[in-house]
Structures are given as C-alpha cells and as structure tokens.
C-alpha cells in the first residue's frame, strides 16, 4: 500500500469523487491554473477542464452563493477557501442562506466548503484561524475536521456525497507532516462518528484535528513517566457531535480533558463540557477541564505563537492535575 500524506489524501478523495460523479465541480481562488495556494488541486484543471475547476474572482460570497445555486440545480459543488480565515467573508450567506435552505424551503443544497485552517505555521492573525466555533451555532450545517490522512480522504468523500452543506476544515500543519498507508479505492468516514485514537482507562482526552497528535504525544509521555493510561477520542465531526462516543468514554475513565487549538471563550470545549454535565455528570470523578488557545488573536512571532497555542507540555500538565484530583 502506498504511503499518502494528509494533503495527498484530500487530493485523492477530491479527484476520485470528480471521476465518480460528473455533478461534482470546484470553485475557488487560484485553484485552476495554479492548483491552489497549497497545491491541493494541482493538475485538476488540466484533467477535468476549466468548467469543472473554476478560478473565481476574490469573492467568497460569490463562491458560496454560486455553489448554493448550482447545488439547488442538482450539482455538487466543492468550494475552496484559500485560507479558512476568509470563510468569515461569506459568513452571512453561509449562515443565513445556505444553512437555512432545507429547513425554510425544502431546497437541497449539497455542497462542501473546504480550506486550510490552524496555526503552528507562523501564519499570523489572518492565515491561522480555527473558525469552527463560529459555525457550530448554526443549525443546518455539518462540520468535519480530520486528523489523519485516512479520515482526510474518508471525510472529503463523505462530505461530497452528503445531502447537506458541509464545512470541511483541513489543518495546514498536518498537510505534509502526517502520512499513512492507505488502500486504493473507496474510503469513507461516516459523518457524525468519533474515532478512538488511543484506548485508555484513567483519563479521556477529547480533541480533534491537529490536537489529536499532541494529545497522543502527551499520552505517550504520561504512560512512560506517570504510568497513566490515557484515552484519546478524535471527534472527527464537530457538528453534529458524537455524544454517544463522548459519554461512553467518560463513563469508562471518569475524568475528561478537552483540548482544542481554537480560543477558549465560546469554543467547542464549553459545549462538550455542558453535554457531559447534562448526560453523565454523576460519572465524573473530577471537574471537566480544558486546554485551549489563549483568548488573543493569533500573533505572528514564533515565541508569541508558541506561547499562545496549546503545547504538548500543557496537555501533560493538565492531565496530571486531573489524574491527581
């Protein structure tokens, strides 16, 4: 089996879906002739033609709006945001038009909006964002955020085949750093299901995207240095959340740490904490704690960025606090 990077896995998934279904097409800035800022769609325009791989003006509202209109007509558009930070330029049309279309008007709007999110790459305040919390609050959307190459492929394919609008947040730090052997052919990751990334019995870390890898690193250290058995649950889908998997793990380990790169206030960790409180409070042996990005816009300088974002040491320290509670 060939070894495939996270980025190649996204590319393979996109290409396979375009080959499989001629209703699938793409819109985005510089995705055609140039192949995209990160080369995710490299070679696509040559292979599929300029009508199916459309270079658009710098117009996120037009990209999303046109995709919605085409989706109503039976096509399956995939929009690229050059950086996911620019998704906010289309916030209104996503939350007001796209997300409500099925509910208010029975309009089918199968479309995917994907793009590179996340920090640790010295991108500064406008090329490093994690905007998931801003869309979590929107009924009518689905949100996925893969951590592995397998899920990068499996989730892009599942998102394209889904009958509702899906926001697909890929992590640019993982693009070329994560790789694994993947079988050829269809690989689908069901939307709405978390993945057990590591089994454990003393403590659960609930996390997603790039933080899965830091959590696994922390779990290794905690096993070696403290003899702790740490479970890592990779959410994969952020909306709808897999409550079942979260609750099952809480009932097993009775201690929970939620880790995300996004800032703390109003972040996903607060929502997960509330759900644990509602569904399995009496199973907890310690308060739910969270490790999140600090509540500041993401700064540029390496010293600043590394200080602001969660690091493996932070997760280790937080886990030790919980384990000894």
């Amino acid at each position, binding site marked *: 089996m060939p070894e495939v990077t996270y980025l190649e896995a996204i590319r393979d998934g996109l290409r396979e879906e375009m080959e499989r279904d001629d209703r699938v097409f793409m819109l985005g800035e510089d995705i055609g002739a140039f192949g995209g800022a990160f080369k995710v769609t490299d070679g696509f325009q040559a292979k599929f033609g300029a009508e199916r791989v459309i270079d658009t003006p710098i117009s996120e509202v037009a990209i999303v709006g046109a995709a919605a209109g085409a989706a109503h007509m039976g096509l399956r558009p995939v929009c690229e945001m050059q950086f996911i930070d620019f998704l906010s330029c289309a916030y209104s049309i996503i939350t007001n038009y796209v997300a409500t279309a099925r509910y208010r008007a029975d309009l089918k709007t199968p479309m995917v909006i994907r793009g590179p999110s996340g920090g640790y790459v010295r991108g500064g305040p406008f090329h490093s964002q994690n905007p998931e919390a801003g869309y979590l609050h929107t009924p009518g959307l689905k949100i996925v955020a893969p951590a592995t190459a397998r899920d990068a492929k499996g989730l892009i394919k599942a998102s394209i085949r889904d009958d509702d609008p899906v926001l697909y947040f890929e992590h640019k730090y993982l693009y070329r750093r994560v790789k694994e052997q993947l079988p050829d052919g269809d690989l689908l990751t069901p939307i709405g299901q978390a993945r057990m990334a590591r089994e454990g019995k003393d403590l659960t870390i609930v996390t997603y995207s790039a933080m899965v890898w830091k959590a696994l690193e922390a779990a290794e250290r905690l096993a070696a240095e403290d003899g702790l058995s740490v479970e890592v649950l990779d959410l994969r889908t952020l909306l*709808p959340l897999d409550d079942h998997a979260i609750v099952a793990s809480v009932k097993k380990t009775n201690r929970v740490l939620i880790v995300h790169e996004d800032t703390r206030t109003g972040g996903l960790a607060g929502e997960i904490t509330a759900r644990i409180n509602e569904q399995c409070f009496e199973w907890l042996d310690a308060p739910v704690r969270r490790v999140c990005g600090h509540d500041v816009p993401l700064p540029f300088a390496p010293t600043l960025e590394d200080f602001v974002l969660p690091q493996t040491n932070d997760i280790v320290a937080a886990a030790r606090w919980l384990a000894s509670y």
Partner: protein
Amino acid sequence: MAAPTTSTTPIPAGLSRAQLHDLYYWMRLTRSLEEKLVNLYRQTKVIGGLFRSLGQEADAVGSAFALDRAKGDILSPLIRNLGSLLVQGATPVEVLRQYMAKAQSPTRGRELNIHFNDLQRGFLGQISHLGDMVAVMSGVALAFKMRREPRVGLVYIGDGAMSTGAFHEGLNFAAVQKLPLVVVAENNGYAYSTPIRKQTAVKFLVEKAAGYGVAGDQADGNDVLAVFDATKRAVDRARSGGGVTVVELITFRRKGHAEHDNQSYVPKAEIEAWEARDPIDRYVRHLTEKGWAATADLAAIDQRVGAELDAAVALCENEPLPDPASALLGVLADPPAADLEWYRRT
C-alpha cells in the same frame, strides 16, 4: 360607440392579443390579491408584515412575462415582485397561506410572505439579506451553462440592495463567467425610508452595468409593454450566449415599506405624480384606445380575478397553523429531526 373587437394597430413586442390580455390579468390579479391581503391584515389574519407592490405591478409582471417557462427559466423575486411569482405559476392560495402562516403553506409555516420557491415552476424565493440572491442566481445560471441548457435566470435587485457587497460579488462573478443571467434593477425611489440619492452617487442604476462590463438597458417600469420589451431583449441576449444584462426599470413605491409605514418621509406631490402614472390605469387606456381589448374583455378578466380570489380566500382562510412539533423536522436530511429539549420530554 362600442370598442372594436379586433385590433386596429399592430401589437408591439411580438405579443398576441391573448397575451396582452394575459398581461392585464396578471397585473390585476397582483393588485387584487394584495387588496385581499390588506383586508385579511386588518382582520389580523395576516401574521407579520404586509408588503405592497402598488404601482409596481407592471415591472414585476412585464419582466417575468419575458421569460420562457416552457424552457425552464427561473427567476428570483424581491418582496415587491409578487406579480412575477404569479406569472411563473405560483397561486394566490399559496401566497395567502404563506401570509397567514398556514400548515399547508409552501414553507409549512417556516417562512413569510413570498419567500417560497418551486424550481420546477421556475421561482426561487429570496431571503431577507438583500443581494445574496444575485450570487445564488449566478449559480443557477452557472448550472444552466455547464449543462448546455438553453435556460435563463432572472434576478430582481432594488436601488437599496444594489449597495450590498453580495450584489457586487454576484454580478461580477456572473459577468466574468458570461452567465445567462438577467439582473432587473428596480428603481422605485426608496429603500424603506432612504431615497436613492442617499443610496448611490449615480443618477441611474443602469450606469453601474458599465463597471461590470455587461450590457445595460432601461425602461419605464410603469409601462408593461416597455418592461416586457426591454427584459425580452436581455433574456434573448442571455439565451444566445451574450451574457448578463442589467435592466433598470424606473417605477415608484406608492406605499410604505410595509403596511405599518405611513410613508411620512415621501413628499405628497411625489406620490400623487406617480398615482397619475398608475401602470394598470395606463395599460387599460392603452389597450382600449388601440383597440386591443374591449371594455367588456377587461371587465370579464376583473370578474374572473375576483372569483378566483374569493375562492382562494374561502379555501384557506380557516386552515390550521402548523403542528408545533413539526418545527423540529428537516433541518438536515440526516438526522431527519432536531433533538427535543429535555424539559419538553415527558
């Protein structure tokens, strides 16, 4: 002297005598349906606001009439384009049910007034965030183009909504892609209380077309035949691969933004001047003077409209509102229903 029963003057714009009568029917139906709604509003049977298109019926009807429903053309109306929806096949019963939030309304009580759609009949309802529909309709037109279908999209935009970023992005994208899209720019003088001079520094909305590299045209929005003619040229251009046209229709909103609005910000003389240019009165004079319709023809249409509307109101006036629990259904295809909150579970 009885009015002549056959035309004595050639009919413009390639229309038949029957089509001229149809145009009258749609305008009369629009106005009378809104008058019915006013009655229901005063009886508090209309839930929410009521938006009138008094004086703008020609612009909505004449432009929609230029589309070809048999070819599958699709339009997206604004709040004052009730007439365009009717031309595309929406029924008075559907509109009444929408305004009264009935369970059987096209949106099952989820959305208001004329915010509803049927892509088969060829209309896509707007949302309240103005400008978005230009971007969305560019996607509809993109699908037509990608599939080599000879279909045209038409989207209405007002003097107010042309100030939005979504309008700019949508029109620019459609222009670059040379999509089969007609953008009908309704210049009706006011956006809520804001006059056009505070909305834009151009004198006429059609001037904006040049900035996007697309064709522009302008017509008297209170002359239904002129509206039809200008829109038809734009539709033909779009269908033949000539791309986008911005068609400015100059008209006037003779009522407030909605029924609650007494229009105190509009000079009385301005309203009176436009009353004298009422599109239906003008059209009636035109039809009878040219001999394209007899007074009796028009009276028969009035009677038909009245009977249809009476029947429509009688049919749905006392229908129930939606079942409350239906509110949770259909946010997504999967899962099919949202969670019921714990405090409602028994």
